[in-house]
């Protein structure tokens, strides 16, 4: 029972273009979402997050959009660079209580071609 779904296992874009990575969730109690980036042979690194009280959060070339009614979020990278080639994971949680356990998607492998 996958509560966080990344339906595209891979994505390929040209350098300079926009990369859009998608994530869907099923649990309406989730109210905090994070994106992580993972290079081969390294642990994932935190990229950007968004609370459910917002519908957009921007940090440099990275923007996350949240559509609560559709239970959908997306990560936009613009312009895409070859160094962005990595696996991107979407994760979610409920902020109520003291539980900090995240529910993870299976990841999308992004390839940015020069």
């Amino acid at each position, binding site marked *: 029972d996958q509560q966080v779904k990344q339906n595209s296992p891979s994505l390929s874009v040209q350098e300079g273009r926009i990369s859009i990575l998608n994530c869907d969730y099923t649990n309406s109690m989730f109210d905090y979402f994070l994106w992580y980036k993972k290079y081969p042979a*390294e642990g994932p690194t935190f990229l950007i997050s968004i*609370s459910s009280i917002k519908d957009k959060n921007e940090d440099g070339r990275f923007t996350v959009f949240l559509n609560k009614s559709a239970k959908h979020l997306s990560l936009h990278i613009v312009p895409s660079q070859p160094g962005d080639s990595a696996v991107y*994971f979407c994760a979610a949680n409920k*902020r109520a209580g003291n539980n*900090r356990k*995240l529910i*993870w998607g299976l*990841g999308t492998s992004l390839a940015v071609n020069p």
Partner: protein
Amino acid sequence: GAGVSQSPSNKVTEKGKDVELRCDPISGHTALYWYRQSLGQGLEFLIYFQGNSAPDKSGLPSDRFSAERTGGSVSTLTIQRTQQEDSAVYLCASSSGLAGGSSYEQYFGPGTRLTVT
């Protein structure tokens, strides 16, 4: 450095042997997580420690797997009687126990690549 460290970085073991994997979290972080990633797969949650609370062991795949966290800091993941399907990268992460969104940001170590032959 001040990041999460894991040891060993690589471990090759024979089927049936026991292995211990170590994680040193970021100092002061009260939450510690173990995951594994098999080849071509996503992150699989194993176990979660939060402060002095009982750990969430819901992700451990069998009773051959166990973990402890001594003194609220260092954690050891033990796999007994290893099987070939245990081969994976084992990742440890920690996060702060502070209130607010940043407490959900998990900081990962580089992982331990386990190969069971």
